[in-house]
């Protein structure tokens, strides 16, 4: 190009050249940038444009409901009404907006502004209406956001009628859980809560909507979360910038409603068990003159032949009706702060306690089956035996006394009387051996105690379909060496043989040990769900009883086969897998028969005679007084050797001839097992047989 200036024009050529160069530079820069944006990064931006306009909508699935074994509804879904505000749709005029805020505040009771400045989760925000809307306006102005939740049907209806005058305000009906039986079944059903931050990715991958969908936090709600929840539907909607849906893109996946559950629980028996426990705990507190003498208690009733849990109650508990649609912070803190009672913990399976004399069932089965003693031979109970320290045999100061609860001693006792009167010295001697008695050298011993405890259900979770089941603790020589760095002593064996010392068990395990003896050696899988129903109420799965292992069948069940008959989806429970070796043993039938006789004698003439005997029904049981020394007792100076505070246990089954119910009652710091827990079990058994009679009468 000729750059010479035309005649008369005095724009210097080189200055023109610079102009052209600048222009070319800008042109090239733009072309390169365009090429980069449109061609090289084109797909990225195309995807970004798609993300802009395509909204993934998760269609909420209806959560399954829960019935008890008689078909009465324990949990249902009710609509809860939320008031939403879409900031972008509010009127332009500040005055009109303020009028709307004021009207909403008046109707819902949510203040305009509060002193809270910290944002909360959806529906858990404690800030005022204006604060909320102003924040949402800067985050997602076209998204409707709740400013008041669970406002009640009347308020919702009023706002709906006045919606025309309040642009930007809308009402949303959200299904929430309604626990019809409230606190009575909270230990079984559990509760729901928002998806925690830590599990956000997991649940989002499953199609859940964080901030909208709730998940089970405890109980059946948590254990059967996958079955109950169903799966959200899915559709893609093209929206413009204002969030107006324009059209649906692609196929719509309809939501799959969750399965409903029919539990093995009988709500009527549950109520009887709950009030028996409650009354007895109140009586213990009242009679001792200490308002918080016993902080907690547990009752469980089970069908020993099937493993069905008929009632399960722990106290103190929480009121699930107050947990829905969301958990109030002050109530939650109140529950959390009860450090002794721990209402949110399901003590039936998640807490462990020294089982005390109820553990003598293990020692009995072991000693008889291993022929440590002849059950007819008598053994002397002088009320107190002394073990010399192995290293200082001649120093009386180093020796240790083991006493019977009856300091007078029971004199000479045979097996049946030893069990019936819960004679400690008898069990010390057969458990750990004693020179001069007709007992196998060393007694049953720690290793066999360990094996027989596991055989009767101790030492590992039983796979009940509730979350967080504990396995308890059965000590062994290795365990003591590893954990405490000390050698096992005869005294340890004595303690273990009577359910003291290091032994810890859940109430469910103690119940299972008695139920196994009642059920002639078959350890049944304890379970809470009887049937799985689809969204229309058709039974899609009957949960069949499952024998975890059988002590009398002469076959040792390998550990990997234990629980294989449980016909449940894998996600429900995997706690049985904690076992390392099989608990199954080969037991002679007459051993269990003899133990049952002993348990019968407990009721007829033994420790429970005055407290747990039923009028028309023959029952058999075992008392337990588990000595403990926790922080509270220790602070009060109650941990005096030989006179420790104790938990009250009583476990029983009935009828003796053909057991169909096994019940355990546990009262923390309840002192005497027979006195405190015996009557609870008795009332539950009476309620059971009364209800049975009522049902039979109704059917005929």
């Amino acid at each position, binding site marked *: 190009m000729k750059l*010479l*200036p*035309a005649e008369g*024009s005095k724009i*210097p050529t080189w200055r023109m050249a610079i*102009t052209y160069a600048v222009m070319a530079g*800008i042109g090239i820069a733009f072309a390169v940038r*365009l090429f980069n944006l*449109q061609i090289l990064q084109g797909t*990225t931006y195309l995807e970004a444009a798609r993300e802009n306009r395509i909204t993934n909508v998760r269609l909420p699935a209806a959560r399954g409901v829960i019935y008890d074994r008689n078909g009465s509804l324990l949990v249902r879904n009710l609509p809860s009404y939320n008031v939403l505000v879409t900031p972008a749709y509010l009127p332009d005029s500040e005055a009109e907006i303020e009028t709307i805020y004021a009207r909403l505040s008046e109707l819902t009771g949510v203040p305009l502004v509060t002193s809270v400045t910290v944002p909360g989760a959806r529906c858990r925000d404690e800030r005022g209406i204006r604060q909320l809307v102003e924040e949402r306006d800067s985050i997602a102005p076209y998204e409707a956001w709740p400013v008041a939740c669970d406002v009640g049907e009347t308020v919702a209806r009023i706002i709906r009628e006045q919606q025309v005058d309040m642009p930007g305000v809308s009402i949303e009906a959200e299904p929430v859980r309604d626990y019809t039986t409230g606190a009575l079944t909270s230990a079984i059903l559990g509760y729901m809560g928002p998806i925690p931050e830590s599990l956000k990715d997991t649940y989002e991958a499953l199609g859940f909507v964080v901030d909208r969908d709730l998940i089970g936090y405890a109980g059946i709600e948590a254990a059967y979360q996958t079955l109950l929840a169903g799966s959200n539907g899915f559709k893609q909607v093209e929206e413009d910038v204002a969030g107006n849906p324009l059209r649906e893109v692609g196929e719509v996946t309809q939501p799959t409603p969750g399965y409903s559950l029919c539990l093995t629980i009988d709500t009527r028996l549950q109520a009887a068990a709950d009030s028996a426990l409650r009354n007895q705990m109140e009586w213990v507190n009242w009679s001792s003159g200490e308002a918080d003498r016993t902080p907690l208690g547990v009752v469980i009733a089970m069908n020993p032949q099937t493993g069905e849990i008929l009632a399960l109650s722990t106290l103190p508990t929480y009121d699930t009706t107050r947990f829905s649609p969301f958990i109030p912070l002050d109530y939650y803190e109140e529950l959390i702060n009860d450090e002794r009672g721990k209402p949110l913990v399901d003590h039936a399976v998640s807490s462990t306690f020294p089982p005390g004399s109820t553990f003598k069932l293990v020692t009995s089965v072991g000693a008889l089956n291993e022929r440590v003693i002849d059950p007819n031979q008598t053994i002397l109970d002088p009320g107190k035996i002394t073990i010399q320290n192995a290293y200082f045999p001649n120093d009386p100061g180093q020796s240790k006394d083991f006493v019977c609860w009856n300091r007078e001693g029971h004199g000479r006792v045979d097996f049946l009387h030893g069990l019936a009167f819960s004679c400690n010295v008898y069990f010390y001697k057969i458990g750990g051996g004693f020179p001069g008695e007709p007992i196998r050298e060393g007694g049953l011993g720690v290793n066999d105690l360990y094996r027989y405890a596991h055989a009767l259900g101790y030492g590992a979770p039983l796979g009940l379909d509730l979350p967080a089941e504990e396995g308890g603790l059965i000590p062994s020589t290795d365990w003591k060496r590893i954990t405490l760095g000390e050698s096992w002593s005869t005294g340890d064996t004595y303690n273990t043989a009577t359910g003291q010392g290091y032994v810890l068990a859940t109430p469910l395990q103690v119940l299972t040990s008695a139920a196994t003896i009642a059920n002639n050696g078959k350890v049944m899988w304890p379970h809470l769900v009887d049937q799985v129903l689809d969204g229309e109420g058709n039974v899609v799965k009957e949960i069949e009883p499952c024998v975890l292992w059988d002590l009398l069948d002469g076959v040792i069940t390998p550990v990997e086969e234990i629980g294989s008959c449980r016909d449940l989806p894998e996600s429900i429970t995997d706690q049985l897998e904690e076992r390392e070796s099989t608990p199954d043993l080969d037991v002679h039938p007459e051993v269990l028969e003899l133990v049952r006789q002993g348990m019968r004698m407990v009721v007829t003439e033994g420790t429970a005679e005055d407290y747990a005997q039923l009028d028309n029904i023959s029952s058999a049981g075992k008392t337990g007084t588990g000595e403990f020394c926790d922080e509270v007792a220790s602070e009060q100076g109650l941990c005096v050797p030989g006179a420790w505070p104790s938990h009250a246990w009583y476990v029983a089954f009935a009828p003796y001839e053909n057991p169909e119910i096994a019940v355990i009652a546990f009262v923390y710091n309840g002192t005497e097992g027979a006195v405190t827990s015996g009557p609870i079990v008795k009332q539950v058994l009476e309620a059971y047989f009364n209800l049975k009679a009522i049902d039979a009468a109704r059917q005929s």
Partner: protein
Amino acid sequence: MQVSARVWRHFDVWLLAAVAALTIASVAMIQSAIAGNESLAEAVPRQMIYAVIGLVVIVVAAAIDYRFWSAIARPIYVVVLVLLALIMAAGFVGFGAARWFNVGIVNIQPSELSKVLMIIVLADYLARHQHEIGQFRIFIRSLILAAVPAVLVFLQPDLSTAIVLGVIWVALTFASGAKLRYFLVLLAIGAVILVLLSPLLIDYFNGPYQAGEDFYFVQRYQMQRIVSFLLPDPEAHHGESYNVNQAKIAIGSGGWFGQGYGHGTQTQLRFMKVRHTDFIFSALSEEFGFVGAIILLAVLGFIILRCLRAARMARDQFGALICYGVAILLLFQSAINVGMNLALIPVSGLPLPFVSYGGSSLVANLLGIGMVESVILRHKRIEL
């Protein structure tokens, strides 16, 4: 002022054709970009009316001998100052930042017209003092000449137009042959002022900026735009960089050939704001792709090149400077607008010449083209 029929044979038909093509494309693109927004529906017929008015303006301006403008340069300057003072007064009277005169059904934006008129004023002054252009005195006087309206525009406040006026002054004094070291001196003075201002700026950003207050004459939103460009917040979705991001997505999703006219989702679903004005280039790039965007840039480039060609052909310095001034006006506004669309420079309210919606801007630019045509028509000293 006689119009000889013979001079019309020099009329630059290519220039007119290119301008007409862009103007027509603009109307079509505005039609697409309003995306069914009813409050913008009248933009299309309006732009058509302005295009017709503009065509008349080109012919009339071409017919008028450009040297006539030289004769009335001083009255023009007075008119510019009065208009800008009036609009500023209107702004002070409580309408906030006023940029328009509402005259009947049309709004006239004096600052758009002032850009073209200041080209005439400065070209006239510099051409008259061509022989003493090397003197610092002339340099400073021309600066003052430009600075007075620039400050008035700045106070409206209309930062971008003020910058355009500044650029026109720089371009015209540069083209006239002013010594480069004068520019360096000016630059040094500017740097010193910036350094002196920096404590004030630091104070401002630490306090009043957060509180949403203005920085003296510069309004907060203008400071905010600069900040959002210099320090983009990657978290902000609906924040300050929202529109720039949306424009980038729009352009990027265009690919080679675009989504098709009326089918760009960023435009049609209104994810992009001010689609028919500031961000019409993005809308066009989304719907017509890389090819469409390059064609648009090529046509704009062609128009500017034709203006620069006219500058070289002009028979006198005044004509040359007018053509050069118009070329720079178009080049600078295009570069700023496209650069902003491509997220290369901060967001400013400068329209894309001939394409963005806006009557005053279109008519002013077409007036400039008419004057360039006038220069071309009369580039021969003696017309036989």
